[in-house]
């Protein structure tokens, strides 16, 4: 490899007491690509992204950011390094508007002296939020409406916009379409492509294989705490992925089938 990957996880191990959640997970991500993590429940996908986002500390292995080893002790540190997570529940404050959510914890204050008293510069935040939404082509009527009045897809849009608005290089998305209907899911997939086109690397966990094949550039399969295979999308098929996820691959090959 000529240029180091944006993010690389090498031989990550993680135990919870006697339970081994990760036993050597390897993963890498480049700028401007969507890399999907697939696997059955309990395969270790969530644990792996929690290690990357600083929520969990690995017991072994190392993380490299642009070739440099890093230790990420907490989500704040991950964020400083340009790694944002869009949680499955989105973690939005429903009563605040899109702009309020976009800037939550990073509010823009008025110039002094009002800023010293903590007065918010809502105008600037609304303007910036509207720009961000346009940038990602998120169709949202007003950034000044409480987020709980928005549709599920629009809320996902707000959560993604919040994730990429801060000079982010890596966005981790946990089941971004799990709670959505068909049309909303299509909208979110479009949003993921748009985000990738901005040069951001996206790690996506999904159970929905047609979706994965619709949007991912690469697919890594996890099983029993290990990353067992990694493909470019056009190198593999849904059937092959399912076989690997369920562990049927070994039996399939033993019975004389051809790989991938």
């Amino acid at each position: 490899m000529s240029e180091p990957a944006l993010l690389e996880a090498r031989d990550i191990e993680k135990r919870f007491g006697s339970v081994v959640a990760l036993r050597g997970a390897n993963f890498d991500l480049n700028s401007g690509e969507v890399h999907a993590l697939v696997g059955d429940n309990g395969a270790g996908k969530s644990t792996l992204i929690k290690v990357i986002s600083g929520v969990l500390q690995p017991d072994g292995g190392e993380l490299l950011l642009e070739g440099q080893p890093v230790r990420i002790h907490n989500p704040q540190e991950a964020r400083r390094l340009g790694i944002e997570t869009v949680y499955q529940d989105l973690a939005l404050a429903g009563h605040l508007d899109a702009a309020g959510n976009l800037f939550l914890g990073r509010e823009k204050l008025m110039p002094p002296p009002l800023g010293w008293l903590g007065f918010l510069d809502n105008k600037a935040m609304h303007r910036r939020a509207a720009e961000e939404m346009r940038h990602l082509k998120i169709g949202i009527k007003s950034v000044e409406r409480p987020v709980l009045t928005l549709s599920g897809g629009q809320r996902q849009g707000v959560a993604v916009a919040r994730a990429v608005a801060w000079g982010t290089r890596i966005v981790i998305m946990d089941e971004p379409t799990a709670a959505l209907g068909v049309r909303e899911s299509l909208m979110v997939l479009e949003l993921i492509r748009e985000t990738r086109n901005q040069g951001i690397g996206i790690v996506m966990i999904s159970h929905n294989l047609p979706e994965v094949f619709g949007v991912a550039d690469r697919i890594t399969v996890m099983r029993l705490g290990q990353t067992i295979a990694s493909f470019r999308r056009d190198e593999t098929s849904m059937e092959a992925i399912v076989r690997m996820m369920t562990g049927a691959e070994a039996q399939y090959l033993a019975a004389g089938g051809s790989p991938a």
Partner: protein
Amino acid sequence: MTQQTAPTQVEEPFEIEAPEAPPAPLRVALTAFGNFWILFFLLALIAYFTITSPNHAFFQGFNFKNIALDTSEVILMAIGETFVIVTAGIDLSVGGILVFSGVAGGLVMIHFSGTVAQTSNLQYPNASVAIPLGIAVGLAAGSGWGLLNGLLVTTLRLPPFIVTLGTLGMTFGAADLLSGGTNLASVPTTFQNSLGNGTILGLYAPVIVALIAVIIAFFLLRFTRFGRYTAAIGSNEDGARRSGINVDLHLIKVYALTGFLCGLAGIVDLARFGTENLSAHNTDNLDAIAAVVIGGTSLFGGVGTILGTVVGAFIPTVLKNGFVISGIDPFWQELLVGATIIVAVYIDQWRRRRLSK
């Protein structure tokens, strides 16, 4: 009301680009009523008591003074309660903190303003030192209890309901212990004359204190980062935490602020009556919570308005005052305020269901 605006629309829960249905007049009227019903209710109460009171005694300057003074204490507590309820918490200890702060401040004032022989003869040679000291002690006592509430809620991870129910009992008990179970002997008369009955620009001092608190709280909740964090925590505590907000620290600040305001209310109470009546505040929490939820703040957190609370705070005091003046048994007041809380929370739930549809 969606049935009326779009009766035949096919179920499309994820409609994205559809133009918004034009608001039906009935829907607009109901929404407006949902926001302002309490103001109509208050005006109706005032009209009712004006008509039913002998010689229309309700609608007179002297009576409005009483209502304003009573309400200023409720407002101070209810402002703090608004911040707490917007975080999706509750503070049941407000009346207890008021009494404790009044007793603590009053005792300090009496003790430091002269010898026992002097003060029992209503002589207060050192009043100019003792009064500010007493005020400071009262405010500190209130803030201290609020701080304790906040620390218990955040460090022990106990529901605010339980923590403040506990400190409600503790504050009343501690106030009884401090005062020996009897109402305080008279505090310095200059204190009563200045802060209790004194006026500035025609406004009574307690009213001015409440007014200043209202203005500051209005801006604090609506336009500052403090208010934004308060709403964010009430809306989605976990989300706020994951956004990097120090949720525990903020909650401690909110409970301490409420304690401070209750301390302030205790000082005002002491100044108005020249004593601290130990049993007059047992249902202050009912009044404060009623003011907040009647005023449109959601008991489930995330949204609230200070101005709504101010209007809401008049309901319990107008009811109490009106019943006394109209010769109706004032025990009806507690009954009605309790019922009003239930109605107000029901309306809030109905609005939330409609909003999230």
